[in-house]
């Protein structure tokens, strides 16, 4: 029984350490949950993630999917409540909204663009790698 407990603890530690190291993700931004892998296989969705030269960028674009578009805007609005800066630009069918959140001394920019004519919504999270550790 004791041996089994030790083995189970060892396995749990390895699994936890591995899960922690998968990506440098801060786990309390609502927008980041969109990139957890849950929507990777959805039709009409494009997701890109790149970590390069110290920069970490994630982009999600959804076309003709009002339900998922709402999920994205709800996540953005949840993060907007804690933003230190907010900016919005509206022109015709295009609506661009930008917020900035400071984490680990670095600025994270989260942007949301909505094109009502094309029924397209894009959300991105951009910042240095350090901001997400």
């Amino acid at each position: 029984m004791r041996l089994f407990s030790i083995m189970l603890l060892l396995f749990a530690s390895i699994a936890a350490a591995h899960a922690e190291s998968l990506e440098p993700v801060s786990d309390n931004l609502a927008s980041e949950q969109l990139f957890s892998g849950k929507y990777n296989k959805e039709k009409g969705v494009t997701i890109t993630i790149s970590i390069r030269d110290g920069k970490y960028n994630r982009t999600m674009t959804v076309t003709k999917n009002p339900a998922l578009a709402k999920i994205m805007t709800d996540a953005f609005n949840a993060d907007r409540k804690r933003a230190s800066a907010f900016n919005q630009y509206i022109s015709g069918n295009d609506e661009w909204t930008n917020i900035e959140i400071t984490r680990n001394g670095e600025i994270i920019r989260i942007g949301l663009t909505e094109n009502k004519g094309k029924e397209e919504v894009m959300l991105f999270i951009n910042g240095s790698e350090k901001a997400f550790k």
Partner: protein
Amino acid sequence: MKENDHILALSEIEELCRLYLDCKLSRLEEAELQYVLLKLPYSSPLIDDVRALMGIQAAASLKLKPKMHRKWNIRWIAGIAASVVILFAVGLRVASGSDHEATDGAVYIAYSNGVELTGAQMMAQIERDNAKVEAFMKRMDEIEAEEARIYNELFND
């Protein structure tokens, strides 16, 4: 004799062994002595010699075998379990790390319409999205700078 095994003293066993060596025991008595030597853990040079002649091992050493077998089983199982855990952890690491990590340490992941993109298609999609993001941020910075300029003109002139 079986029911009296537990009360035979070492000296009595040795006496029986002497009789055995002197060929003074009947076949039945030899079989009984063999049984006693098998069951009881007594040991002395005389008793060990008779055991060797009879081709039997001492009761104590026989009893040890199951215990050693149990210890060996626990170690075996623990070793197997540890190996499985380590292999699983290494496998997880290899599976998660190698697919998306480029040789320069950069990480690229792309999905489009439910399909994971790889190679040139993946890089092209990533470059397109990153360019959109850069254009967005640049435009928003320009708008913010323009707003600040207008504000300064209105209130600071």
